[in-house]
């Protein structure tokens, strides 16, 4: 039995919803009642059945709608997908990785067959059946990175490793939490993280870089990151900030449950075999407050996290304008009782 893909939108009428099963599998990012940056990187290994970690590359009920939204973003702004000239080989590495993982995890939806360099890729949800020559860009309708990331949920950054640093030299970035690939492409690890407050002083990026440059093939790693988004909008790019920014002023005590979404990024890090690059998929999960608070533990914990968040972090995450409204709304769902350890719902 395959996934039933939802027909939904991430813009205009915002019909995006999570099914009850997808609410339960939401990757809630807080394992305790408070939050501060940490180098929270762990091995990216398969997790429990029914969780977002059941497969290392997760495909869910939002797949088809997300790919349609990506196509709309790219039609408006092709600069969201860029690859510096030396990154084509890494693009092929990524194509192989995503085809293999999607076919492995979801054989009813994706099939990859290989005869030497002649590959056939069948993507049933999107109605694609292409045969091409691996390594020959002229046999695909797009470059290899663009081709496969138009068929894979999440943003993708490909990092080149040289001089003991990682360089953001290619990417497909249409669902970003307010950073610009077009501006950051070509930067090193410290430079593209430069605007993040507090973390540099804590040595977070120095330690993270050390970890990432040592990632080995076949041993991916992962971490969670989070922010909040008003309306289930995937494209919260700085490019369009002047279009979606006004949403933040529309939150009222009456509509918090419907409008405010927790946005969680499952970031994973994979060594690429031919190019020795690192690919960094940033998979975005959205959940509206009304859905999230169906799990009482999450409601209590989120209330405490948002209430106690340091001011700099709240500002950086763009919560300032609606934070008090949200905390007030969540407080009614927090009876002060303890929460169990760990991420999952009770």
């Amino acid at each position, binding site marked *: 039995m395959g996934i039933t893909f939802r027909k939904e939108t991430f813009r205009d009428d915002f019909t995006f919803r999570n099914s009850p099963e997808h609410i339960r599998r939401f990757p809630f990012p807080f394992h305790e009642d408070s939050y501060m940056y940490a180098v929270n990187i762990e091995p990216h290994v398969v997790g429990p059945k029914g969780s977002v970690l059941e497969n290392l590359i997760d495909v869910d009920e939002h797949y088809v709608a997300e790919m349609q939204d990506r196509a709309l973003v790219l039609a408006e702004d092709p600069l969201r997908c860029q690859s510096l000239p030396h990154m084509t080989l890494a693009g092929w590495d990524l194509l192989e990785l995503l085809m293999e993982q999607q076919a492995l995890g979801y054989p009813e939806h994706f099939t990859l067959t290989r005869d030497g360099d002649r590959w056939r890729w069948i993507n049933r949800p999107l109605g694609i059946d292409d045969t091409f020559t691996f390594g020959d860009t002229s046999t695909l309708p797009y470059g290899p990175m663009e081709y496969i990331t138009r068929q894979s949920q999440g943003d993708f950054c490909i990092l080149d490793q040289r001089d003991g640093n990682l360089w953001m030299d290619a990417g497909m970035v249409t669902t970003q939490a307010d950073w*610009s690939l077009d*501006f950051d492409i070509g930067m090193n690890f410290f430079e593209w993280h*430069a605007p993040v407050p507090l973390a540099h002083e804590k040595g977070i990026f120095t330690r993270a870089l050390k970890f990432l440059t040592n990632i080995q093939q076949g041993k991916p790693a992962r971490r969670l990151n989070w922010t909040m988004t008003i309306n289930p909008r995937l494209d919260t790019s*700085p490019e*369009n900030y*002047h279009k979606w920014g006004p949403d933040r*002023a529309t939150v009222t005590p009456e509509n918090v449950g419907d409008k405010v979404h927790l946005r969680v990024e499952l970031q994973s890090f994979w060594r690429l075999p031919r190019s020795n690059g690192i690919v960094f998929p940033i998979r975005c999960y959205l959940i509206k407050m009304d859905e999230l608070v169906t799990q009482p533990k999450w409601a209590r914990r989120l209330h405490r996290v948002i209430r106690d968040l340091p001011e700099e972090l709240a500002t950086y995450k763009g919560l300032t304008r609606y934070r008090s409204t949200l905390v007030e709304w969540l407080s009614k769902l927090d009876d002060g009782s303890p929460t169990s350890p760990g991420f999952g719902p009770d």
Partner: protein
Amino acid sequence: MAAKSIISRPVYGTLSPQPGKHHLFIADAEGALAISEMAAKAPAGFFDDAEIVFIPGPDGKHIAALESLGPAQFHQAPSFASLLPRLKQTLSNAHMGLRLYLSGTEGLIGQAMQVALEAGIDHTSMQTEHRGSLARRMQCVHCKGITENVTTQPATCSHCGLLLLVRDHYSRRLAAFQGVCINAEDRSEIPPMEEAFP
């Protein structure tokens, strides 16, 4: 001097003579003073293998002082744009052993560095010294247009007209600081425009 801020913000040093076969200096306005001061510390004959490319400021000063250093080549350009074809050719024909020295406004240093990066020169091998105006080149993240010589905070995009916060986040590839709409969430909020980068 530019104040220290975030990591992507360029940090400039003081020009010093480097070992090398050829020396290319690119400067504007008061950047000439950085070259003159470095010349005082340079070994005899240093400028025999040097080219100085200079864009004078509106007051037209410092030309004679640079010529008096006796560089093998001296070229005066009215603007960076007019200099670009020549600079691209010089860099694409350059051999190992060319050393690059950039001095003057941030806009000049950034744009010259951008051309050199495209020619395959590593940015850490370039000598830089900031002199003169703190005015910024700014890329509007929304319309992608570049506004030159931004001195205020916030600043108006000269292309799309949005009111932009001029961030310290800087791209060497674009040779520009990032400008992001400052009142995107409520366009009726209009913060006062102050002289921030004189």
